[in-house]
């Protein structure tokens, strides 16, 4: 065996030992888990939405910087005499180069003025568009208030068991959202599932990981394929159709191949009785039918493993699916 071969085998063995020790410490919780999570959140919080806005500004600045031209022509040369000749020519023609440089600098500044105007116009358009969107979406506060009054549905033991079994082999962490209380997370964690909950207004919990943020915003900052599973609950009763489709679109990319998805949706009659007539009339969304969720999940290339319909004894329906890429 050569040095290289024996070293390679030795290094592989060392790496295996390192991985085993890291796994053991992870299992024992012997590492600063909360700190690392907060560092991860801090990092994600500061990832820019897009670099384009800064890109326009950077482009304008770089044009302005490039427009200020040094009229001193370089005099380096491969030949010894070349440097002297070039220096002499530079001195003799400096007045000319300075005149040209001034004109080019002026041109550069003239070029950036319309760019700045264009940038400012685009920003104004953005602002007006946002204002128009706000105006078109009237009475948002009232609808949000009504929607917030719709709590998460209570799940029976049978539904809990079906979801827990489905998530047991999830290839990573499971997200539960958008919830208003910790119950569903506690249930899964007690069953040995690595789960955390997301919902605005969720209060901190000593042993559960609950994140006080909206589900859509949370999904937006996750990388593709980082989740092992998702349980969608609550949002299916409160969100409008566009929001529910947006969430499904995000789930389809954020969940890893082989990941598990569970959609819990309240029966329409049970939902009506929960929100009352005023809520049913004014909340923009309503629970989608079980068949609609099956259709939507299949359109996202997921395999629907099971669809449990609601019944007189069971006021929630549930669809269990697996992501297949």
């Amino acid at each position, binding site marked *: 065996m050569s*040095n*290289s071969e024996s*070293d*390679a085998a*030795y*290094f592989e063995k*060392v*790496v295996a*030992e*390192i*991985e085993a*020790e*890291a796994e053991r*410490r*992870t299992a024992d919780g*012997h*590492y*600063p888990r909360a*700190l*690392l999570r*907060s*560092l*991860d959140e*801090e*990092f994600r919080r*500061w*990832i*820019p*939405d*897009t*670099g*384009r*806005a*800064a*890109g*326009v*500004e*950077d*482009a304008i600045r*770089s044009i302005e910087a490039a427009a200020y031209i040094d009229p001193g022509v*370089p005099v*380096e*040369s*491969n030949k010894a005499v070349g440097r002297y000749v070039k220096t002499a020519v530079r001195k003799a023609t400096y007045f000319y180069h300075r005149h040209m440089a001034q004109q080019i600098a002026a041109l550069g500044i003239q070029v950036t003025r319309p760019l700045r105007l264009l940038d400012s116009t685009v920003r104004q358009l953005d602002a007006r568009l946002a204002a128009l969107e706000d105006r078109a979406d009237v009475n948002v506060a009232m609808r949000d208030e009504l929607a917030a009054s719709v709590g998460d549905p209570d799940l029976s033991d049978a539904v809990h068991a079906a979801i827990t079994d489905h998530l047991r082999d999830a290839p990573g962490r499971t997200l539960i959202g958008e919830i208003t209380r910790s119950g569903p997370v506690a249930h899964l964690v007690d069953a040995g599932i690595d789960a955390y909950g997301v919902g605005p207004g969720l209060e901190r919990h000593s042993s559960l990981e609950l994140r006080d943020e909206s589900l859509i915003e949370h999904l937006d900052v996750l990388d593709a394929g980082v989740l092992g599973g998702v349980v969608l609950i609550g949002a299916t009763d409160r969100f409008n159709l566009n929001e529910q489709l947006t969430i499904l679109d995000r789930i389809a990319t954020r969940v890893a191949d082989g990941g598990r998805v569970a959609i819990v949706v309240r029966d329409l009659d049970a939902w009506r009785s929960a929100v009352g007539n005023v809520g049913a009339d004014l909340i923009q969304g309503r629970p989608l039918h079980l068949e609609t969720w099956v259709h939507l999940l299949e359109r996202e290339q997921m395999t629907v493993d099971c669809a449990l319909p609601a019944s007189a004894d069971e006021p929630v329906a549930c669809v269990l699916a697996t992501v297949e890429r």
Partner: protein
Amino acid sequence: MSGSVHQLVPTITPRDAVGNHTFRLREVLRGLGYESEIFAMFRHGDVTADTHLVDQLPPDADALIYQFSIGSPLATRWAQYGGRRIMNYHNITPVELVGKWDGLLDAEVRLGREQMEHYASACEHAICDSDFNRSELDALGYASTETIPVLFDVADARPDKSVITALDARRKKSGGPQILFVGRIAPNKAHHDLVAAVRTLRDVYGADAHLHVVGTDGPATYRKVVDGIVAHADMASHVTFHGSVSQEALVGFYRAADVFCCVSDHEGFCVPVIEAMHHGCPVVAYDCTAVGGTVGDGGLLLADKHPLTVATALQRVAADRELRQRLAAAGQRRAGDFALDTTRQRFADSLDTLLSGERRLP
């Protein structure tokens, strides 16, 4: 051999990997007997006497080699060139990793990726820095590809003693390992993950470790975030950003550091890993993109870069003298595979065979 083989490169600067490689490749081509010049759109002031603007590119060279590492209008010029068209591919960082941080770079890497795909049929032969880079071109249908590492001479100056003294003093005072990373502060290099790993090392193993980062700033937005992470992790007095340093200082860092740690999410080759190995600095690296191919059997390659895994690896190397010695020796052997004479000869053999043979389509 007679005739002319020129190189086309969007920007030529004297102190970056592609710039140095381009100058060294010109030496190889001239050594083969070809007339060879470098044509660029933007030229650093220090190399204007030694290079040419692209508008001076003669239309009748036998072959034109395009140094491809970013999107540029020059790629179109190369693809439409009448002579034989050879590409030297150095990788383009995926837009997902850099786009959000730098708007201009976003546009350039997007264009680069489009050009990479679009000009597959225009390329007679492509030489790639690494097998990883080569696999990207193969997947796009490039007809003829091969891997030859970038031409570079490892930083081999006399080490700056003040750097070695400073690291030794810090090690003596704290007893903790001095961890080094060399590379531009850019999101694909994942400095934020390195900070998290060193913080974990300090917490879990009680090691008073210090992280030394050598390299220029990339996107200002990313640097700001890394500074924020350092503050949030309470690591301000345990991380030092040294910026761009002299060759002497760089060698000092390689010689004095206890371990070189790379947790980049994307590298097309990674010269600093080879420099670290050359100087006997043990390497711990996250095995992704071209990093595994570059490190080879010369370092510890980790399949994941969870801060705890990286911290455990750093602790193991710092605490295990025998492992450190074997890593140093294996690294130096591995670095020898990239010796300038070896790669120069490989380029000479490849180009000699290619250019003396019949032109292959296209």
